[in-house]
């Protein structure tokens, strides 16, 4: 147990070091992610200016911008740049052999390296994030004058963020495993990104969606990548709905983790049968 923890720590530490090698590229990439915020704020300001209504689908302009900033935060946890394509590339180029020869588990290794990846990202991004949220603080003000939800909701929010990280990881890892069957997964990934774009809620709040889309998003896990945590923070999901939502999110994480394992085991079987 202790030996395992120490192994995990070493992997994490080495992954952290690796992330820090390309400082310049990393810092620039992190900062560039903040640019879309500005365009979003302009976009929604313009939409509300053009419309005579003060609210669209129950959202005021302030709500919209607050929602948008919160989904950015969700996605800082749930997006996994390069994970699926990286797995597929490792399979294609035979680097995956390493995990067959050495006594190390690939899924666990990737998870640790992704945690390292995220930790470094938060380390760099926390400054700009804080700045943006402070500048946009007024959008978050609630009717009662406070800026934050109560402690219980806040805890639920943080839990849903951690779960969204795990959900994003296992979902993308499972897609990457398809590389065992098809050497090229980039078009598949493109389709996934497209679905993600519309049905995770990072373009617009999902409760705006009409039927049958509203039911459809309930059947797939994508809403937990962006919409769900943001909605929890804004107090749109409360009480039994909140508990149920979190349970469903946990169920998705467990289900996808199992899928990932099965796909990996099957994939390895095929890989080693096919010729390596």
């Amino acid at each position: 147990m202790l030996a395992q923890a120490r192994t995990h720590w070493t992997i994490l530490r080495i992954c952290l070091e690796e992330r820090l090698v390309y400082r310049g590229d990393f810092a620039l990439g992190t900062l560039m992610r903040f640019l879309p915020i500005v365009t979003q704020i302009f976009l929604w300001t313009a939409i509300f200016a053009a419309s005579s209504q003060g609210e669209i689908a129950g959202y005021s302009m302030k709500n919209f911008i607050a929602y948008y900033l919160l989904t950015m935060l969700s996605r800082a946890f749930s997006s996994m740049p390069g994970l699926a394509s990286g797995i597929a590339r490792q399979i294609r180029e035979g680097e995956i052999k390493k995990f067959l020869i050495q006594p190390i588990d690939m899924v666990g290794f990737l998870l640790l390296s992704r945690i390292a990846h995220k930790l470094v990202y938060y380390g760099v991004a926390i400054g700009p994030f804080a700045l943006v949220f402070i500048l946009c603080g007024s959008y978050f003000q609630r009717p009662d004058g406070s800026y934050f939800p109560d402690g219980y909701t806040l805890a639920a929010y943080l839990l849903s963020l951690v779960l969204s990280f795990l959900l994003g990881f296992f979902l993308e890892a499972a897609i990457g495993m398809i590389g065992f069957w098809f050497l090229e997964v980039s078009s598949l990934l493109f389709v996934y990104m497209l679905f993600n774009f519309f049905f995770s809620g990072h373009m617009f709040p999902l409760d705006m969606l009409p039927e049958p889309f509203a039911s459809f998003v309930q059947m797939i896990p994508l809403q937990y990548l962006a919409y769900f945590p943001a909605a929890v923070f804004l107090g749109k999901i409360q009480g039994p709905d909140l508990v149920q939502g979190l349970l469903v999110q946990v169920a998705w994480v467990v289900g996808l983790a199992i899928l990932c394992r099965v796909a990996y085991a099957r994939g390895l079987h095929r890989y080693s049968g096919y010729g390596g």
Partner: protein
Amino acid sequence: MPVIEIEQLSKSYRIYQKKEGLAASVRGLFRRDYRQVDAVRAIDLTVDEGEFVAFLGPNGAGKTTTLKLLSGVITPSSGTARVLGHVPWKRENAYRRRFALVMGQKNQLWWDLPAQESFRLHQQIYRIDPQQFDATRDELTDLLDVRRLLGQPVRELSLGERMKMELIAALLHSPEVLFLDEPTIGLDVVAQHNIQKFLKHYQQQQRITILLTSHYMKDIAALCKRVVVIALGKIIYDGSLSGIVDRFSSHKILTLQFANDRMPSDLSRYGEVIEVMEPKAKLRVDRPVISRVLASVLADHTLEDVSVEDPPLEEVIAEVFSLTGEEEAIAASESDQA
């Protein structure tokens, strides 16, 4: 005690065949033609503890496939193999902590980090005792003379230095069996020699079992007493390196130096003339007739010097490989008709 026991081990797989041209590519979208490749065909092999065995064979002969089978990367189509009592393709951690595979063309180290970080990671995943790890690492880095390079990112190392680091990474957990696939490929003569020297020393000191594939005859001559020649997925020879000449060479090289510069013009009646540099001549003579030819040369001419030698090893092996290449072409054309 045998460390590696292989019985009737076979591996075949299908590869996609595409004919030339765009039309064929489009057809390939709907219907794919596969060709079965028998990479390894019913191999039997036993290797004892502490042996240093070379696999020799032309490209595509099945050498790497055999190493992949023994290291558990691939599962066989049929047959059995046991290494240190384990079935490799079950990939038990108990087995994986006891062997190592080094591929000359594949990089296992972290590209952007210094090699010592990769070593540290190996310490953890192989659960190497910290004190033993330090001792082994220091010993290996001194032997290979790379201590000063430990802190340099791997991508900035030369090919030879990188190979040394790969070897260290593979040996840190003191494997009992080591598989080396072309460890000196692409290296210059000095680097090749260094790696050879190291492997020889290490193997003698640790008495570990090593299986090596290489194209460089010098590697094999320097390191291995036992050579296994593989061609078309079958073992066609198993024995000493020099024994290959006896077994496969069909001729001998006869060198004649004529007295009084009297060089006969009809040398070709004794054998195939390879080289003439008056008053010397080199002939290739079939083995069965060598004594008869020699007797008649001596009877017909006055000679100052004469020698009968085996052809160079490289030449014999090249001959063996080209023969199997022709067989393969015949086999392929037969299977096309089938």
